[in-house]
């Protein structure tokens, strides 16, 4: 049966810099000898871990999943996985866009934790207003990906969210 390529991506709050890809392809193809990953950013460049000398990241065929420590902030990425033959030609590939939001989601959760410790925080007029803006930016990024695979709009929203969370003393 021919290979039907597919994969998923995930990110954890505890290690937001790491994205984990899992190969969920079905079928097989004996000509496939290697696999590689491209992480395309909204600015048109490829994201790679420090020390990586190519635009892509090798993903060993024996590994079902790969963890890539590559993010320094929330990012919208168009991820392409290519399954290659022994002569380095692409046999098949799959591209999916993702919004990785763990940095801002964790910050957002932390705001609620702060409220639990000090309920008076919400008394300020801008607390909920800015918290809601942060939520809208995160959701907008997810929706831009979900509905249109639009990493440009998603990254713009994530950049606005990141500005809020990294300048929290101004907003909260």
């Amino acid at each position, binding site marked *: 049966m021919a290979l039907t390529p597919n994969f998923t991506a995930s990110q954890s*709050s*505890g290690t937001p810099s790491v994205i984990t890809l899992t190969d969920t392809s079905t079928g097989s193809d004996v000509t496939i000898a290697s696999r590689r990953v491209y992480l395309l950013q909204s600015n048109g460049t490829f994201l790679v871990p420090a020390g990586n000398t190519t635009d892509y990241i090798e993903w060993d065929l024996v590994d079902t999943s790969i963890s890539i420590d590559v993010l320094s902030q929330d990012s919208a990425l168009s991820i392409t996985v290519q399954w290659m033959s022994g002569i380095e030609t692409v046999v098949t590939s799959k591209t999916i866009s993702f919004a990785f939001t763990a940095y801002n989601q*964790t910050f957002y*959760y932390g705001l609620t*934790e702060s409220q639990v410790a000090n309920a008076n925080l919400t008394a300020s007029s801008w607390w*909920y207003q800015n918290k*809601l803006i942060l*939520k809208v930016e995160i959701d907008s990024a997810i929706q831009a990906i979900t509905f249109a695979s639009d990493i440009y709009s998603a990254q713009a929203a994530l950049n606005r969210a990141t500005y809020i969370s990294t300048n929290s003393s101004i907003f909260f």
Partner: protein
Amino acid sequence: MLDPNTVVSLAEISQYLWNDAIPKENQFFNGTIDPRKAQQLYIERCALQYGIEQGLSGLPGVSNYVYALCGAKLQLAIEILGTGNGGGGVIPGGGGNFSVFEYSTNAVEGTFTVYFPEAIGKRCVNAFRQGNNIGTILTSGTPTGNQVVWNKESASLTVAVAFYDEEFVRVVVQQ
């Protein structure tokens, strides 16, 4: 402490109850004590859901905080969550994150599990089986007596007492 997933459901129900109540209070009582209540519930419930999803620290505190935010709508929300109705019927909806959907099937005799493929990923807020009462809806473990276990990953409902032939089973789920 209530299960945080239950608190999420209560917050979702309270949110729409508040959202409905605030315009009425504005119209009939010339204002409301807290016009931001529905938005607050939405904001904090989203945080709680992320905390549950990621297993973050401080979850009991956040869960209790959201529970308390439900305020005056809490009792009605508990009633709706427990019975599927209260203060008016819950009408299966067609969109949005807070819609309630109803699915049904007929079980195979002697089996303990039925599946509702359209309900994958959704929370079960109520269940019914023709041949037996349904008690607590668990989300893990093994049911005993009239308990059932809802597994949202596989959208399966498992009972302790085997189904009879073609027994009618219905679930009400939320996003």
